[in-house]
Structures are given as structure tokens and as C-alpha cells.
């Protein structure tokens, strides 16, 4: 590939933005070839260009006003630029949609946070996938800057976070806590809020996780310890049972009865926790680390179930809790990581509050239940891609409940690998429209991205495809989802 450079045009007029790759080549080819023949600039010989272009979905910035001259053009080398339409290509394709925003900045939805950048004029280099590119660092720096302000500006935070939160420096943990309303915007209040919440959780645990023997002992408070010392032999004195509490009590309000009823739920929680993410050492395996994490998950879910008798525990809640706990536990800050359990509990409650109704069986058919959400998704798809909708629901009769149920109730944690789902959650949590709306958009985008395969398939193959959604370029997916928002407003 020739190194087509814009260097000749240091400050080109805006209209000269090539809309297609062909245009681009055409306009510059002659001049550049001529240039190349004359001499090869030193920078071209640098080792930077020996790395292969990345294939995991970096959007290369196309700068119109390059303050730096060197590398921008190289970006154009590997990436064809297509018109920003609703993308119809499958995710595996190498299309890199570019869209220009009315503002001077060029924003790319690239939550994999490698080469897109915001207001900096950094170069996008062909950094190796595992390295931290300058843009990554810049985003990290921006987030850190935002987080270290006295009062966090939520709009700003959401805006940066929605492009993806870098994996390092424990930023995600703090940002998620802010987005979920666990940490107040005022930085000074953080330590007092955290202390308060953590002690609250500790209290919950003590109250709710006690077994009835301990509870009765506490209720009595009488000193029975000296009993054995006072008489060496003789009939043991009998005493009245307090409040009619005995282990075989069948009374509704009996703590023993409640305890045995809760045992069922606790067993269910235990089973589900053991099955959470069996491929990850953090959650599963023989290590004591995994065991303690599982215990923490269990305790959180048990406390939640006891505090919410209306909804108790439903299978799937463990999957929603898992990413939260993982992120908080892996916070490099020791103190934060140690209190991950308490923090996860409150953030879990907050996150679930928007989706509670999906877990309530009685609400299944109501206007707020899961069925209604699924039909909203269906409607959404119909608005954006009627052909696909028609094919799916009417021609091949793929009832959205078959695939969307798991997508929606589990917030897409089961459809992608763990790292990808964390990125998706970055967007879900930070979008000002709210997680549910964003989730619907992302689900719709998922359908649209595989439309070609869906349109070609019948019931069986479509269902198979949707229930085992192919691993895809998350940045592309989220970009499409974002596009759906702006189109919906048209």
C-alpha cells in the first residue's frame, strides 16, 4: 500500500474530506507518487510502520487539521472509509464507519478505547493490541482528571465513560460507583458515605445471616453460663420458651419457621453461585480466592433476598452481580477492594432497581414486565429495520422471547465474553438515557449487525444464531447502537 499522505495539505479546507477511499486515493495519488519518487522521508523508514494494522476494530482518525503531520495518514492506509449509513455488514467485515459531527472534534464510538480520541490531537498509532495507546492514556487521563475534581461533573463523566473506560488504574471501579449513585458527586463526602454504607451492610449481614439459635440466645440475654457451675448434680431446671419459639414451630412469624423456609432459597443461591462463570478462576475452582468470592456473592444475594421479600432471589441475579463484584474486587486500591462486598451490594441494588420488574413473575404480562420490554424491542426493530423485523417475526416466526429474554434479563452478560460485557456495561451505565433504553438499542444493534445471516436463514438457523450470538467487534456494535439513537429522533 502506498503511503498516501496528506502532508502536502497542512490546512486543507473542510470540503476536501474524502468521503470514500477511492476519492482519497484519486486526489492524492499523483502528487504523492511523485513525491515518493523524489525521496523517501526518514519518518517513513521508522520502525513504527512495521507493525501490522490492528484488526480488532480501531477507528482511525482522519484529521482535517493535523497539528502533527506524521502519522495521521498512515491511519488511512488500512481502513477503507465508507459512508455512514446504518451499517449492514456483519461485524466481521472490515468496514469502519466514519461520521463527522457538527462540532470540530471528531468523535468515534470506540469503547475498546484504543485509537479513538476526543479532544486531544494525539496520533493514532498502530499500537499493538496489548499495549496502551496514547489515546487510551489520554482517556485515562481525562477520567482521572474528572474523578479528581472536587465535584464530579456527571454529564462530562458520562460522556467520557460512554466511549469506554480503560481497564487499568481501577478507574472503572470508581466510575461505576459514581454512575450508579453509590458515590456522591462531591468528592469530600466520599469517605463518610462509604463508611456509612459499609457499616449498614455489615449490620444487615449480622441481622439477617444469623441462624435462629443465635437469635434466640440474643433475645434471652439471660446469663445461663453459670448454670452448670451452680449445681453439680440434680434435676435440670426447665424454663419457659420465649415467645413460643421452638425449632418445630409452624407459626408464620416464628424465626425458626422462616429460617427453614429461607433454606430453600439459600440452597438455590448456593447452586447458582457455584455455577457462575465456571471458566474464570476468580469465581470458580478450588482456590481459596474463588471460595471467598463465592461466599461473598452468596452473602450479598441472601441479604438481598431477605430484604426484598417481594422478589426474593431469582436465577440470573447472580449473573448481574458477578461483573460488579469482579470490578470492585479488582480495584488496585486496597481499601476499596476489601470492601468490595458491601459496595457491590448497594450497586447491585441500584442496578437492579431499573430491572426489578423483569424478575417478578406476576408482572410478566403487565406493562412493565419482561414481555412488554421484549415487545418494545420488537417494535424498535420494526422502526429501524422493517425488512428484518418482518423476516424474523413473521416469515421465520422467531419469537423474540426465545432470544431476547436472556439478552434483556441478564443485561447481555451471557452473550459475550466477560471483558466485552464489561465494555458494554460501561455504555449501559453511562448513557444518560438510562440502562434499559440503552440495552434495547444495543439489542437492536445486535440484530441489525447479523441481518444478512438472519435474512438468509430459516427458523432453526436464526434461532441458533441468536441464541449463540457470534463474538463481534464491540466498538462497532456500540457505534451502531448509538446511531440508532440519533436516527430514532429523526
Amino acid at each position, binding site marked *: 500500500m502506498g503511503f498516501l499522505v496528506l502532508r502536502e495539505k497542512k490546512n486543507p479546507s473542510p470540503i476536501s474530506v474524502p468521503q470514500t477511499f477511492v476519492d482519497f486515493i484519486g486526489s492524492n495519488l499523483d502528487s504523492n507518487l511523485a513525491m515518493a519518487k523524489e525521496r523517501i522521508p526518514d519518518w517513513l523508514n521508522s520502525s513504527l510502520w512495521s507493525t501490522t494494522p490492528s484488526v480488532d476494530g480501531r477507528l482511525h482518525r482522519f484529521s482535517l487539521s493535523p497539528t502533527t503531520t506524521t502519522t495521521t495518514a498512515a491511519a488511512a492506509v488500512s481502513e477503507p472509509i465508507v459512508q455512514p449509513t446504518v451499517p449492514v455488514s456483519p461485524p466481521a467485515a472490515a468496514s469502519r464507519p466514519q461520521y463527522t459531527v457538527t462540532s470540530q472534534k471528531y468523535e468515534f464510538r470506540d469503547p475498546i478505547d484504543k485509537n479513538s480520541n476526543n479532544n486531544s490531537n494525539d496520533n493514532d498509532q498502530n499500537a499493538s493490541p496489548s499495549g496502551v495507546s496514547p489515546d487510551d492514556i489520554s482517556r485515562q487521563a481525562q477520567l482521572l482528571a474528572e474523578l479528581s475534581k472536587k465535584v464530579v461533573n456527571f454529564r462530562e463523566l458520562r460522556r467520557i465513560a460512554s466511549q469506554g473506560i480503560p481497564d487499568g488504574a481501577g478507574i472503572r471501579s470508581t466510575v461505576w460507583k459514581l454512575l450508579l449513585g453509590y458515590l456522591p458527586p462531591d468528592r469530600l463526602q466520599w469517605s463518610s458515605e462509604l463508611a456509612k454504607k459499609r457499616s449498614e451492610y455489615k449490620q444487615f449481614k449480622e441481622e439477617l445471616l444469623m*441462624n*435462629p*439459635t*443465635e437469635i*434466640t440466645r440474643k433475645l434471652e440475654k439471660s446469663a*445461663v*453460663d453459670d*448454670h*452448670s457451675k451452680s*449445681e*453439680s*448434680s*440434680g*434435676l*435440670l*431446671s*426447665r*424454663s*419457659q*420458651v420465649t415467645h*413460643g419459639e*421452638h*425449632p*418445630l*414451630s*409452624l407459626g408464620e412469624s416464628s424465626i425458626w419457621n422462616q429460617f*427453614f423456609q429461607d*433454606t430453600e432459597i439459600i440452597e438455590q443461591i448456593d447452586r447458582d453461585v457455584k455455577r457462575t462463570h465456571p471458566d474464570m478462576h476468580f469465581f470458580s475452582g478450588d482456590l481459596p480466592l474463588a471460595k471467598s468470592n463465592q461466599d461473598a456473592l452468596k452473602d450479598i444475594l441472601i441479604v438481598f433476598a431477605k430484604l426484598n421479600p417481594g422478589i426474593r432471589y431469582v436465577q440470573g441475579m447472580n449473573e448481574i452481580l458477578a461483573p460488579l463484584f469482579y470490578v470492585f474486587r479488582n480495584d488496585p486500591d486496597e481499601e476499596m477492594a476489601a470492601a468490595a462486598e458491601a459496595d457491590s451490594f448497594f450497586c447491585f441494588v441500584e442496578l437492579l432497581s431499573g430491572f426489578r420488574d423483569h424478575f417478578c413473575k406476576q408482572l410478566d404480562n403487565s406493562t412493565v414486565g419482561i414481555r412488554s420490554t421484549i415487545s418494545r424491542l420488537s417494535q424498535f426493530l420494526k422502526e429501524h429495520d422493517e425488512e428484518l423485523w418482518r423476516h424474523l417475526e413473521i416469515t421465520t416466526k422467531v419469537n423474540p422471547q426465545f432470544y431476547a429474554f436472556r439478552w434483556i434479563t441478564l443485561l447481555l452478560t451471557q452473550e459475550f465474553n466477560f471483558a466485552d460485557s464489561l465494555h458494554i456495561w460501561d455504555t449501559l451505565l453511562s448513557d444518560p438515557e438510562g440502562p434499559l433504553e440503552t440495552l434495547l438499542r444495543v439489542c437492536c444493534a445486535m440484530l441489525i449487525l447479523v441481518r444478512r445471516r438472519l435474512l438468509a436463514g430459516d427458523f432453526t438457523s436464526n434461532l441458533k444464531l441468536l441464541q449463540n450470538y457470534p463474538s463481534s467487534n464491540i466498538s462497532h456494535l456500540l457505534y451502531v447502537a448509538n446511531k440508532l439513537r440519533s436516527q430514532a429522533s429523526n
Partner: protein
Amino acid sequence: MVLVLAIGDLHIPHRAPDLPPKFKSMLVPGKIQHIICTGNLCIKEVHDYFKTLCPDLHITRGEYDEDSHYPENKTLTIGQFKLGICHGHQVIPWGDLDSLAMVQRQLDVDILVTGHTHQFKAYKHEGGVVINPGSATGAFSSFTYDVNPSFVLMDIDGLRVVVYVYELIDGEVKVDKIDFKKTATASAH
């Protein structure tokens, strides 16, 4: 928090047809971890019924038991406590606390559960504690016809035992409890 049911002397079908319905409604599977039975069930059906309540069942032989393969004594360890079972018809004089204390020392247990007298008793001596759950059906005994149905449920928690006594008095279930703590030092022989 281990729940242990101590029950015995039902004498079904000879002296009583069945457990009192109020007792039966309370004894549901899933709550109790162990059952200790002093003997005199007397038939296999009662054995099977207890098995449905809890799979971990320990029985000793009473003089009217139809299954002759139950042992005369049995010992088991639950948590920090050693428990011993013996029906009690072998210990003469019947129900004599000193003789029972001898059996307890012989078996080297903290809690000895015996029956035969059809009277609830919980007695403490240097060697440990003797518990007699009485007759669960209120069957008449060799001494008296006036027997209240009773059984015992022990809640073993660490070094502490809470003994819940369930008695059927005038058609009503009365529950009492007894607190008992094992001293950390070994019991004297």
C-alpha cells in the same frame, strides 16, 4: 446448629395406634439432622416413618422391639458432644439415676439418652447429663397409666445444648427448654 430429635417408647401398635396428630404435624422432614431413638417402636413401619423424617437414624433395642438386630447401646458424636443411647430396661433399678450414671460412665458420653420409664427427665450429675424423652405416644408403662406424650429436640451449637421438651398436656402442646453447657474440661470419670 444441629437439631437432634430424641424420641422413643411409642409401643405402636401394641399400646398406641399412632403419634398424637399435633406431634405429627410438627415433625416434618427437612428440619432435623439426626434422630436418636431409645427403642420400643415396635414395628418396622415406625422405623420407616422416622427414616422419612431424617435419614440419620440411631436406634437401640427395647424389650418389645420386633427387630432384634438393633444394638443394646449406641454412641455417636455430634459436634462437640458425645451422645449415648440405651433403652434402659437393662438398667436395674429401672430409672435409677445412679445406675444410669454408671452406664454413662461406661459408655463415656456427655449426654445419655434412655427411655423405658415413659417419664420425661433431664438430670445432671458429674459425669454428664441424662435425658429421658418419655413416651411419644403416651403409651402406658410398667409403672403407670398416666403418661403424657412427650419427646425432646436438642439444638446442639458448639459447646451449648438447648433442650426443647415437647409435651402434650390436656391436648395442648407445651414446649419448655433447658439450657445446658458443656464445660471445656473433660468430664470426670
